[in-house]
């Protein structure tokens, strides 16, 4: 069941991965950005976990909303509003849904999050941003669920799609975010946001495994 507890586990696992990969994210951001992506997300996700710990039991939407507002309050930079918006829209999509534990509801929530990132950041896929990991992941999730695959498998496919999308950012010339300032010199480096977004999807695959 993708309930509040499962979503909390997802957020926790994302926080754990971000903390573990903090230096690697910053290293990626050093090459084509300003060397803060790891510190930014780690600060935000640590705060999000603390906020969830402090909060009394609440529904699935509330878990994601708390995560969203905490990220917006603590991250800053580009990734703060973007990840914040992702979780906020995802929470909105779960709010008042009859059965939020339905995998399709999760897929709709994630898709709403993705649309929120697009609306907030005005980037497109191929611009060398987190969208290049998140977008393919959402597509893969939808497809797998539509094909009747169990949630486990669908999330696995999504994680793979995210990782592929992340890797595919390497040759791209950035058009959005800080990396765009480098022009041609941005090619040859993986986008840090695509790397962190991949962790987000991988966290879902790990934390929600067996909860379908």
């Amino acid at each position, binding site marked *: 069941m993708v309930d509040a507890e499962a979503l909390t586990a997802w957020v926790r696992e994302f926080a754990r991965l971000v903390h573990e990969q903090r230096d690697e994210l*910053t290293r990626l951001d*050093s*090459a*084509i*950005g*300003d*060397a*803060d992506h*790891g*510190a*930014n997300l780690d*600060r935000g996700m640590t705060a999000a976990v603390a906020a969830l710990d402090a909060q009394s039991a609440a529904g699935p939407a509330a878990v994601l909303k708390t995560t969203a507002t905490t990220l*917006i*309050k*603590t*991250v*800053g*930079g*580009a*990734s*703060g*509003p*973007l990840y914040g918006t992702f979780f906020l829209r995802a929470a909105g999509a779960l709010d008042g849904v009859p059965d939020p534990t339905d995998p399709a509801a999760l897929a709709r929530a994630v898709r709403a999050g993705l649309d929120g990132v697009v609306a*907030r*950041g005005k980037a497109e896929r191929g611009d060398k941003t987190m969208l290049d990991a998140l977008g393919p992941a959402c597509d893969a999730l939808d497809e797998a669920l539509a094909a009747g695959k169990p949630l486990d498998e669908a999330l696995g496919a999504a994680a793979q799609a995210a990782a592929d999308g992340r890797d595919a950012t390497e040759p791209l010339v950035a*058009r*959005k*975010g*800080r990396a*765009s*300032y*480098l*022009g041609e*010199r941005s090619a040859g480096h993986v986008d840090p946001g695509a790397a962190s977004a991949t962790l987000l999807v991988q966290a879902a695959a790990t934390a929600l495994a067996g909860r379908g």
Partner: protein
Amino acid sequence: MKKLINDPADVVADALRGMAAAHPDLRVDHENRVVFRGDAPRQGKVGLVSGGGSGHEPMHAGFVGLGMLDAACAGEVFTSPVPDQVAAATRGVDGGAGVLHIVKNYTGDVMNFEMAAELAAAETDTEVVAVVTDDDVAVKDSLYTAGRRGVGVTVLVEKLAGAAAEEGRPLAEVADVARRVNAAGRSMGMALTSCTVPAAGRPTFDLPDDEMEIGIGIHGEPGRRRVPLAPAREVAEMLLEPVLSDLDMTGGDGVIAFVNGMGGTPLIELYLMYAEVVAVLEKAGIGVARNLVGSYMTSLDMAGCSVTLLKADDELLRLWDAPVRTPSLRWGV
């Protein structure tokens, strides 16, 4: 990493304690990391709020005071402030005449200020206008990209719009001055060394001893190209050529020329660069009406400089000369 700091995580909070101690005429909201004019909000005066990532000191908090900003929000190092900070600043400077947000064009800054304005609109009826600065000619401007970065011209916008607000002019006019300054200003920067972000602990990029980066921003981003070290007079040409070919600066009342240090470059080199900048401008037939030479918008400990030119007119020169009393820019009072 060699820095005068305690824990890298505390750099911003610790520095704000120092600012508060050094400038009793400012009010520092440590929780929200906002530096206010001591007398904010001023009834009937448009409130000016700026802010951004820390690591660019004295920008922005060093420009809070009479004739310039009413509040500055300090984000983490190189990370734009969060909406709550900007919203707190906006509330705190609202004297009934509306609030101008001066935002440097970075995805994060723009989004966080936008979200703050949305918050402010939802909570109060404060009128907020945002002006985004984007003067860095190192970045190609295009509809399909994040656009140009906001760099040196931001300091001039804060000074000139600040003077207009101090005169009691309405929000629309103050915003107009800000937009006009941004439109008439262009910048270009270079680095001799990378900066080191405290939380990262090592230089953002490696730069061999005999090379420099041309077209860097103020966040340790590498520049557009790497070239062999060159004498200051050639550096001045490399910085001014793209500025002057982007905007015709001849004629009119001359320019305000601003040679800015990136944090690790001492003043003697900035004066030396200014001499070379003036030499290039003379050859191009451009007169300098006013100037500013110093480290006003830094990139932590990066060695290097940027040059900003602002095509001036009578009104802008009058606003430039108007009194200003802030920790880092002060004259006429």
